[in-house]
């Protein structure tokens, strides 16, 4: 037999994406593309006020308008629960967080601009929109609580009148006394107050949902723009609408980006599900972009004071960080976990700081809910840490690279227990730093700076060494910390009779390319061509179970489940092959798609084994079931810990303050890499969002609680000519506790880049004595600093 051509579609190959052909030809199937027979359209009536009581809602004119099928308000949802929060944080006194009701539609009060009050369902979107304007809501406008510091002050107006204060939780982690003692006696303490600016995720596809009730079967189908359809089925079915799971199917087809904002269970999903049964036809709702700005969960929004204590040699002795974290008006699905367990636990960074203490207060305000957005807590941790380290370098006169090196956890120190509850399994922070320095020609910086100066530009160089935690787990520990869900993943490998493979995965792809990378894992393991593998995701009617995609968990948790299911397939395949070859299964090895017996010329192809499994005429039926399909649930033993070093060089125009990123390099350790092309793309995208946060983006509320950055006219989204070409490099230390040795790569770019960019700007402005500029670092802020100094 001639040697087979290498497939080049396995682990480590930059395979072009399976999903691209349909997207490039306009044949994607996004929720708003779906039109069901007899479908009606819903338009939401939303609060124009940040805080008001509702005295009454007159729906009569709207209900009588042309084409209107129904107008629904909170009264129509009185039988149902509120939207649940999926993570219960406890305060430092042991009390559970304050958890006010999050009604599906406003019940007597509205708490942020955009709070849904009523829904109009009509035969067309235009008719629904026209009728929505006729819904007459009688409000009494109240002064809103917009600013976090005002919200936590004594006597503050309450966002929820039935709560004792606007503090949702008062959480702490670490050793307060040890940190205090070290800070009190340290040779040097660097202090910094900083804002982690509020962001609007802005996936390009607005949220959309279609409810479709089948009265013949009693089954509900919800099509929704979700990153985790099974989670939505569980939350909405069990906790909101009391629909049994076997009568509720949730489909998240092609989804146009998520970045966290499509993890959460939103009111509109429950509304269209209920409405479809009420009006007797499918009901579709699709957000306008303006609506998305005031109804999608926002991200970040921290106010932090951080202190870093150092000894004479620049060794870190202690870190203390006190943070106010905005929750918005209601607790979104995972909001309380973000500034606590996904933030406080990361404050050791890549350093050996022995004493760490953090206090985080979650604060209710009359603003849109804040929840996980790309990185979710880890960008905030990385930002405060890498900013205060850089400032300490300036204050102590120690080179910022050297200061970091002196404090790095050493490569031989793993597994490493941090003082903030994590155990890093592996890493090599020196290696990624060295790589980043080499790739960005560190020694040539002074010459480049002089050349920039000759053109009237201030050049600056900034470094950030980040670490993050992906694939949040294990379930029992997360549960002890307040998670109300499991954090495993499931995968089914269905080998079809002719040897092609269908994978049912609980992970969900909304841009990440799972249909390619997961297929590569199959191709690599089973030795079959990529064309013979189909990855099915996003449908609770097809996929047994799953927790979805967030927190860079897909390959680390979902991929691991797939690897384990494939192992089971190979194990059974060996038993079938052993029978065919009249040998012991222990003697059968599987390689490159062939089952063979070592030291003999006997072999059976994977396809023959598959066919035998389904046509079991020559099959060990007495000891083995026919068929070849295996499922694995994988619950990780630990987080994974991607880390790396990002270096940014900027040029600032002295006349205008305009910042130009002239070089950006990301050196990451993601563990093993399935598809380098896709990983590089993930880093590019993450860096773009991080640069957007650092220089351009910021959600701004005025004192009346109006979102003044409520459209692409006002909210500054990075465009092609705002961003640099990002270069990447990788150093691999394989994850020690999952079968693929992978760590995850989806969020790193957004975590490492904001401090790198801001550090570069501060470095460029060295002559101006500026210690810190809050993000977004706009040209106006920079110009004002330069102009004040020049004046």
């Amino acid at each position: 037999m001639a040697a087979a051509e290498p497939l080049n579609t396995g682990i480590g190959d930059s395979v072009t994406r399976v999903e691209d052909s349909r997207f490039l030809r306009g044949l994607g199937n996004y929720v708003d593309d779906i039109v069901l027979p007899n479908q009606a359209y819903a338009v939401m009536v939303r609060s124009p006020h940040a805080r008001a009581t509702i005295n009454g809602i007159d729906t009569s004119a709207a209900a009588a308008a042309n084409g209107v099928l129904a107008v629904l308000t909170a009264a129509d949802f009185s039988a149902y629960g509120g939207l649940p929060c999926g993570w219960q944080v406890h305060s430092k006194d042991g009390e559970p967080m304050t958890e006010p009701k999050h009604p599906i539609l406003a019940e007597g009060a509205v708490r942020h601009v955009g709070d849904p009050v009523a829904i109009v369902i009509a035969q067309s979107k235009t008719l629904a929109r026209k009728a929505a304007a006729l819904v007459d809501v009688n409000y009494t406008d109240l002064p809103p609580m917009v600013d976090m510091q005002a919200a936590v002050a004594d006597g503050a107006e309450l966002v929820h009148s039935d709560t004792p204060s606007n503090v949702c939780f008062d959480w702490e982690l670490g050793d307060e006394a040890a940190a205090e003692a070290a800070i009190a006696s340290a040779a040097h303490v660097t202090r910094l107050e900083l804002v982690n600016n509020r962001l609007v995720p802005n996936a390009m596809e607005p949220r959309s949902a279609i409810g479709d009730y089948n009265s013949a079967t009693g089954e509900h189908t919800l099509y929704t723009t979700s990153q985790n359809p099974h989670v939505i089925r569980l939350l909405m079915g069990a906790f909101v609408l009391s629909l049994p799971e076997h009568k509720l199917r949730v489909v998240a087809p092609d989804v146009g980006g998520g970045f966290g904002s499509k993890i959460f269970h939103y009111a509109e999903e429950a509304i269209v599900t209920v409405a479809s049964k009420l009006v007797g036809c499918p009901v579709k709702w699709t957000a306008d972009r303006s609506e998305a700005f005031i109804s999608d969960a926002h991200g970040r929004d921290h106010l932090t004071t951080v202190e870093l204590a150092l000894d004479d040699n620049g060794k870190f002795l202690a870190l203390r960080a006190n943070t106010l974290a905005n929750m918005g008006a209601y607790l979104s699905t995972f909001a309380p976990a973000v500034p606590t367990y996904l933030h406080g636990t990361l404050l050791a960074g890549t350093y050996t700081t022995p004493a760490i203490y953090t206090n985080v207060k979650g604060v209710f305000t009359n603003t849109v809910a804040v929840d996980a957005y790309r990185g979710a807590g880890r960008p905030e941790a990385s930002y405060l840490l890498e900013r205060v380290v850089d400032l300490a370098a300036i204050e102590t006169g120690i080179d910022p690279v050297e200061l970091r090196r002196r404090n790095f956890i050493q490569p031989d120190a793993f597994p490493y227990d941090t003082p903030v509850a994590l155990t890093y399994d592996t890493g090599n922070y020196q290696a990624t730093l060295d790589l980043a320095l080499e790739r960005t020609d560190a020694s040539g910086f002074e010459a480049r700076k002089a050349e920039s100066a000759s053109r009237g530009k201030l050049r600056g160089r900034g470094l950030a060494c980040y670490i993050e935690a992906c694939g949040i787990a294990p379930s029992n520990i997360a549960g002890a910390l307040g998670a109300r869900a499991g954090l495993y993943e499931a995968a089914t490998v269905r080998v079809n009779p002719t040897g092609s493979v269908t994978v049912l995965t609980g992970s969900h792809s909304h841009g990440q390319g799972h249909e390619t990378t997961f297929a590569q894992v199959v191709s690599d393991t089973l030795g079959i061509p990529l064309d013979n593998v189909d990855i099915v995701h996003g449908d609770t009617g097809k996929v047994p179970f799953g927790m979805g995609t967030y927190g860079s968990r897909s390959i680390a948790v979902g991929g691991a489940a797939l690897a384990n299911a494939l192992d089971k397939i190979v194990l059974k395949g060996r038993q079938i092959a052993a029978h065919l070859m009249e040998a012991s299964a222990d003697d059968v090895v599987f390689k490159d798609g062939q089952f063979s017996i070592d030291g003999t010329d006997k072999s059976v192809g994977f396809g023959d084994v598959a066919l035998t499994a389904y046509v079991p005429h020559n099959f060990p039926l007495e000891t083995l079931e026919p068929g070849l399909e295996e499922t694995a649930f994988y619950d990780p033993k630990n987080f994974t810990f991607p880390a790396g070093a990002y270096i940014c060089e900027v040029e600032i125009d002295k006349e205008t303050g305009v910042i130009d990123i002239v070089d950006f390099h990301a050196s990451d350790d993601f563990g093993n890499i399935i598809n380098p092309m896709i990983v590089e793309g993930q880093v590019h995208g993450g860096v773009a969002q991080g640069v957007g946060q650092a220089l351009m983006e910021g959600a701004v509320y005025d004192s009346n609680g109006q979102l003044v950055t409520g459209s692409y006219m006002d909210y500054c989204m990075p465009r092609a000519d705002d961003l640099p070409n990002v270069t990447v490099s990788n150093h691999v230390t394989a994850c020690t506790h999952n079968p693929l040795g992978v760590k995850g790569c989806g969020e790193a770019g957004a975590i490492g880049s904001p401090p790198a960019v801001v550090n570069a700007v501060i470095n460029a402005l060295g002559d101006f004595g500026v210690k810190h500029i809050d993000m977004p670092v706009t040209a106006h802020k920079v110009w004002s600093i330069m102009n004040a100094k020049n004046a």
Partner: protein
Amino acid sequence: MSVSVSMTVNGKAVAAEVADETLLVTFLRDDLRLTGTHVGCDTSQCGACTIHVNGSAVKACTMLVAQADGCEIDTIEGVSDGETLHPMQQAFKDNHGLQCGFCTPGMVMSALDIVKNNPSPSEQDVREALEGNLCRCTGYTNIVRSILAGAKDMEAR
């Protein structure tokens, strides 16, 4: 009030009675079921709905159907030759110029317009010409690479 319109869409004659307030993008998506043209904003800034009207890139959310009466319309669905991708589409695939795919049709339609007006664009030309298209996934690095590669492939043909 309804109006009668007729136009050519992807080479096929189309005639319809539509409400006079109907946007061209709504007509393409809802009436013709050409759902590759996407709606990503309501202020004509994201470019996800970019199509070609009489050979030039236009955001389909900025036109009423009535204004397109008699026009030649091309959408993303008409770009490939069946399952064989156009060189620009192939360049996006080869250079990983797309992730979630939502902005992609608009990007490809803009890319074709960029290359039509400037067959050998520089990187900076491409970045500036993409001013009207937002992408949240890619950071644009690979979109720019794709368009530069696509331009070369188109010129070579």
